[in-house]
């Protein structure tokens, strides 16, 4: 298929950006979206032009590095996938596709489609861990039984890949799905109980400090989340915060 791409180009964080039009031809429906961008970049490089910068690494939907905003949706039109797993069969010959970076005040653009998501790391530094040393001198792994339901629900929350689609897609640029997922994982497990109150307070405080917005329950984050992280996690985080604040 042949496509027109409208891509955000921005030299660096201090430069002004703009949309630039490109044509790509002979795109196979079996290509992934990023492989289609590879084709564009190969042709740009062969003409001596600078390729479009974009974040990507594992290309199997787990590292959370890829981050494009495609036709107004984080990770594009398909559900339950990252951009690297989005396939061109989702598009039609002759389509015009708009590609922007994930936009949020807390995610400044580094170049073209590459944004700085280190705010997510800083939220994790504030409390996204259990304070246990890695000495190996812990109790036996089976000493504390954990109900299958609790373990499975914790796992569902823990599958967050930290891509930032929730933030990019939220009209408030809220990071509450991301933070809620981490708070929930630990809140559901006995190991997380000891520091539960401090954890939620510190992580939420850091989230606010980074300039993320609040949640107004529109639920767009859950729809666009490539890992299907549930809104329940935001509710659980709010409950935990309430509990910690009393």
């Amino acid at each position, binding site marked *: 298929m042949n496509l027109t791409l409208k891509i955000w180009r921005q030299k660096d964080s201090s430069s002004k950006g703009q949309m630039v039009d490109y044509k790509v031809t002979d795109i196979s429906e079996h290509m992934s979206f990023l492989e289609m961008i590879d084709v564009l970049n190969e042709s740009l490089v062969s003409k*001596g032009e600078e390729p479009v910068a974009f974040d990507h690494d594992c290309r199997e939907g787990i590292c959370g590095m890829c981050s494009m905003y495609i036709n107004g949706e984080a990770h594009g039109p398909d559900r339950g996938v990252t951009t690297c797993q989005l396939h061109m069969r989702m598009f039609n010959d002759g389509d015009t596709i708009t590609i922007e970076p994930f936009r949020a005040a807390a995610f400044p653009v580094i170049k073209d489609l590459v944004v700085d998501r280190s705010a997510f*790391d800083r939220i994790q530094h504030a409390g996204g861990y259990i304070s246990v040393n890695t*000495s190996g001198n812990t109790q036996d792994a089976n000493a504390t039984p954990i109900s299958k339901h609790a*373990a499975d629900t914790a796992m569902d929350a823990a599958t967050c890949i930290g891509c930032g689609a929730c933030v990019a897609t939220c009209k408030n640029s809220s990071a509450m799905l991301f933070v809620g997922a981490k708070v929930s994982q630990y809140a559901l497990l006995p*190991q997380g109980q000891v520091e539960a109150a401090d954890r939620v307070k510190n992580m939420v405080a850091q989230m606010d400090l980074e300039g993320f917005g609040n949640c107004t329950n529109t639920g767009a984050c859950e729809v666009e989340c490539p890992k299907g992280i549930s809104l329940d996690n935001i509710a659980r985080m709010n409950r935990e915060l309430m509990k910690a604040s009393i």
Partner: protein
Amino acid sequence: MALNSKVPQGPLKDKWTDYKNKINLVNPANKRHIDVIVVGTGLAGGSASATLAELGYNVKAFAYQDSPRRAHSIAAQGGINAAKNYQGDGDSTYRLFYDTVKGGDYRSREANVYRLAEVSANIIDQCVAQGVPFARDYGGLLDNRSFGGVLVSRTFYAKGQTGQQLLLGAYSAMNRQIARGKIEMFNRHEMLDVVIVDGKARGIIARNLVTGEIERHSAHAVVVASGGYGNVYFLSTNAMGSNVTAAWKIHKKGAYFANPCYTQIHPTCIPRSGDYQSKLTLMSESLRNDGRIWVPKNLEDVKLIREGKKKPTELSEDERDYYLERRYPAFGNLVPRDVASRAAKERCDAGYGVNATGEAVYLDFAASFVRYGTEQAKIKGLTNPSENEILELGREIVKAKYGNLFQMYEKIVDENPYETPMMIYPAVHYTMGGVWVDYNLMTTVPGLYCIGEANFSDHGANRLGASALMQGLADGYFVLPYTIGDYLADDIRTGKISTDTPEFDEAEKAVKDSIDFFINNKGKHSVDYYHKKLGKIMWDKCGMSRNEEGLKEAIQEISDLRKDFWTNVSVPGGANEYNEELAKAGRVADFLELGELFAKDALVREESAGGHFREEYQTPEGEAKRLKEFQFVSAWEYKGEPKDAVLHKEPLVYENIEVKERSYK
């Protein structure tokens, strides 16, 4: 220099304990004055960074990704082995040790492997304490599954995302230390050289990938945990950015590189679809617990299937060849990866491949749907359930176990694997070879360590499934923190290492010169052009099977390609900015050297062992033929061009295990 593995004396089971009792320690007050650089933040580098910082050292950690959480360990799917014997099925430290040495085709070092097995149980305890949500059964205890090449269930897992959960565990331990200021994290930084002062590793030169700035970082010791070099094939299951650069740069500064030809071709990956393809996707080995591998028995059926005139589900049991179950009745679909890959290649070479390219076999879950469904119907007390009800119940169970893998398959291939068998084919996945290290995980350069996939030490010529995660975390959490202390005990009076020295000047200049070359060389081909050409040579001539003629050709072709690269490569953009093409150019330059050494190593190793299959050396049944005279580690010393590399041999001695023909029949 003679190789000294520094394996402690004494009985195998006491070596590690005795060693720990006798090494030098650094007191907590002195640790505050010692700096350690860790390159790479996957399971090995992440766990090492966190533990060293907890102990009190000042850690500087480097990752080329935008966060430590994105290292490619995250993509490991199936699980992590540990000799817990929770299932009571006869597992033990010795049995894990035995399986690993046998699985590696008797090409790994006994003492290292035993230590790995010994600390494996601790890893699970540690990860559970960190809040890693491993799968549990209804009683609340940890669940296990089986992996290839073993007869017990010792693999712990978190759905099909075990690597993700373990890495996030290590990342959380890092975060705790980053918050305390004990780890200084350098994201989007790439190590481009190591700096040696008075014969010891004392720092690195790194490039800030956002600004292009070249930085000097000093430390009392340097740990390289930069992963494997599977991307030398261009197409592999590795991440796009996975590279050999850190490992290769230290090789060029004196660290020997061991067994580069030992590469794991994983049997269950999604087959290639076209020339545009940028990477291959793994379907976890855990699927072989419940999936059966087959091709049609008759070539007529193959033809009809390829033409789309027949569906695989229309073939009766009699018309199918479950070739692994046929050839290896004892292990069946759970033979080790090298054996399963070669068997798939054998069937496809004979013309039985089931897709248009002729390079695919089926992985079929129909039998599991029925087995699980029948069990569920009983549990639920359904009387006379219909065939469809049983299938539906069975699918639910399979979905709970492998749902994310089935979804991934469907998204990529556009076929529903609950309805029709998956198609799979082997792909490059893991590299057992790597930087040579002694028992302390130190390279041949003092103060320079190498851990995780980047080193060569534990998997011999073939790694068993779910053992990579085990080794990465064992090295980082439980081994390196001891061994490095023994070395650093001599550095308590050294003081801060200056970066304002001729050694740093020289290393920085070499890095800058190479970057300037790429930027100013207005050549005619892109970096990917060369990477793809290299990958094709590697796959065709150093792939699943190798022979003398092909390897000789590969050496010449890679050497020619490298010359062409250094004349005609084109890198757009500038040096002092975000420039992905520039970063790729440096990585491909190193792959072009490694590739030739790889072929040379494969040529010299005139036997078949594990992932290294030389066509000249096989049994009448087509199995790998190992030779006693090659029972050694090949450690290569850098001397300029790869063709001039000098071979050093570390003999492998087996005192606690009988070296036998490796049979899974």
